[in-house]
């Protein structure tokens, strides 16, 4: 079973702080991590490989330093890391990014002689769009299932899985090859062993440019984007309100008074 996992390097959100004087994000010294949802995609890919054999190839689009994310993925059990890096990719929206990644998947497919699964995290923690996964499968014209919380069974090239819904979950069957986006509930990612970390450090990371993946420069990055940002601003920060004090029955009385119209209205 050949599995391609698409990941993204993101800033570790806990450390994102607003500079109160300038009202801008302080990004200096912020650690970069693998997008939390992608950790589940990597783990699921590795578990499937351990059960069915095959290869897990991890791919990311990003600046040269995104190589660190690929090494981490290798330490978690992936076989190969491919960095899609080109100045032309900068400023891409989800359309341009999906297009770029789908070209990378096509090149990987050629080299592997086919793939069974593309796995993505449900969404990235910095952009939060959840659009790139379905975008890639649309470009590749393969079936997709998003918000997958469990792979129940794989048999005769059919995958039976559970997709989260607002009310519970749906049981769905899809043929391979297909693209799945996964949620946190699907597994618990492993901690890499020391040996795996040493192996990852020495692993060769392949770097591909726009030319390598045969994508037209006008269809990637800012020029390929179907949307464009016209304004960025800092929202008014929510400030702490009123503290309710006194004996407990008194506090309950006050809060009931404050909320009643909101509840009944």
């Amino acid at each position, binding site marked *: 079973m050949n599995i391609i996992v698409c990941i993204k390097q993101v800033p570790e959100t806990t450390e994102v702080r607003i500079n109160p004087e300038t009202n801008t994000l302080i990004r200096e010294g912020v650690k970069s991590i693998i997008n939390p949802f992608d950790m589940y995609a990597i783990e699921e890919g590795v578990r499937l490989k351990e059960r069915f054999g095959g290869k897990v190839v991890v791919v990311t689009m990003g600046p040269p330093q995104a190589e660190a994310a690929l090494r981490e993925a290798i330490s978690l059990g992936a076989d190969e890391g491919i960095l899609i890096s080109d100045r032309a990719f900068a400023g891409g929206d989800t359309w341009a990014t999906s297009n770029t990644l789908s070209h990378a998947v096509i090149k990987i497919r050629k080299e592997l002689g086919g793939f069974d699964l593309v796995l993505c995290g449900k969404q990235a923690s910095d952009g939060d769009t959840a*659009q790139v996964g379905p975008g890639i499968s649309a470009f590749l014209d393969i079936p997709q299932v998003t918000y997958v919380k469990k792979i129940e069974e794989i048999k005769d090239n059919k995958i039976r899985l559970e997709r989260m819904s607002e009310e519970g979950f749906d049981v769905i069957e899809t043929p391979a090859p297909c693209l799945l986006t996964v949620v946190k509930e699907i597994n618990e990612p492993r901690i890499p062993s020391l040996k795996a970390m040493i192996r990852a450090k020495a692993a060769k990371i392949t770097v591909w440019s726009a030319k390598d993946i045969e994508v037209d420069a006008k269809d990637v990055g800012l020029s390929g984007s179907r949307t464009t940002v016209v304004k960025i601003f800092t929202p008014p920060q929510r400030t702490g309100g009123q503290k309710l004090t006194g004996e407990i029955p008194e506090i309950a009385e006050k809060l009931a008074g404050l909320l009643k119209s909101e509840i009944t209205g």
Partner: protein
Amino acid sequence: MGIQIINDKCVGCSLCLKTCPFGAITVKDKKAIIDLHKCNLCGACLPSCKFKAILLEKPQDQAEKKDFSAYKGVWVFVEQKKGRVQSVSYELVGKARELADKLKTYVGAVLIGNNLAMEAQSLICSGADTVYLAEAPELANFLDEPYTNVLVSLIRKYKPEIVLSGATIIGRSLIARVAVKIDAGLTADCTGLDIEDERKILLQTRPAFGGNIMATIISPNYRPQMATVRHKVFLQPELDKSRKGKIIKESFPINEMASRTTLIEVVEEVENLVNLAEADIIVSGGRAMGGPENFKMLHDLAEVLGGAVGSSRAAVDSGWIPYSHQVGQTGRTVSPKIYIACGISGQIQHLVGMQSSKIIVAINKDPDAPIFKVATYGIVGDIFEIVPALTKKFREVLGK
């Protein structure tokens, strides 16, 4: 294409440094330098430069003028489950009405499923002028491919200028696929939608980086302009029984309704009877709950208030409550009218999932807990004393 500093004009005043959300600008030898690995080409620095020394070429500056006069109407993809239209779709029809009035055009609602005539009528009462009704047994339940094919072919046939959808599990899955198939721009999870007066284009505002900054996004060179919106961002319109509109029945060849994926079963979990995303009131518990048995206390309060129970990641990871209740970065994002945080300290990962709630009530022992920084009403004290007291009081006040 790209960004550059015009060195002849730059005086090294450093004004642009503060405006960069990505910390990509530094000043060296009295000239600004942009680190292109960090720069996201967002253009936030441009207005700060008094010397016009920053040059940013954007695609819209180069694009040839396309004629979009054939594109008319503001559409909503209407989400139905078991034949019932979801509340977020009504909220979007209400917003679409407002946008359509500004554009002097019509509101179209696309309803896909089976046996939905009654629902089509209530969409008209909510503000739709035309309902495109695609009914077939094959379309009864959502599946990515047939729904994509139906929506794509309707968009190609009628050419709406704007298409909106709920940022639900179904909406996010479907619309991203549709946008690529029809080569359109799409903005996720908008919290504001408006029309720019001059060019009559859609202004789509959304939080970025966990709500720390807001971005306004446009798609001037592609049609339709597409956006998703979460539950409860816009108000549900009042039903006007006297409103009149058209229902156009659309049918599709069987091959367009074919799907490579098959829906085997729909499982509803009993504890999720109150949908967290649609709840007006959420009572949420964190680490201080101490154990699964104590969530009963939150269920009691939620029941009296007619709300749902949520939780922090800590409570889910401890195995006290299922993941489907988790609010925050790796869980759900909610914006109810009232969010009551019980024993939740307020880590940033939790705050990004609930800070757009209208009223936040925080109950915590620690007076310095970060949750109090976002709380509308803060109560310092023991949840095990305060929550039952609140339940008792609200039962009395609400006559339950």
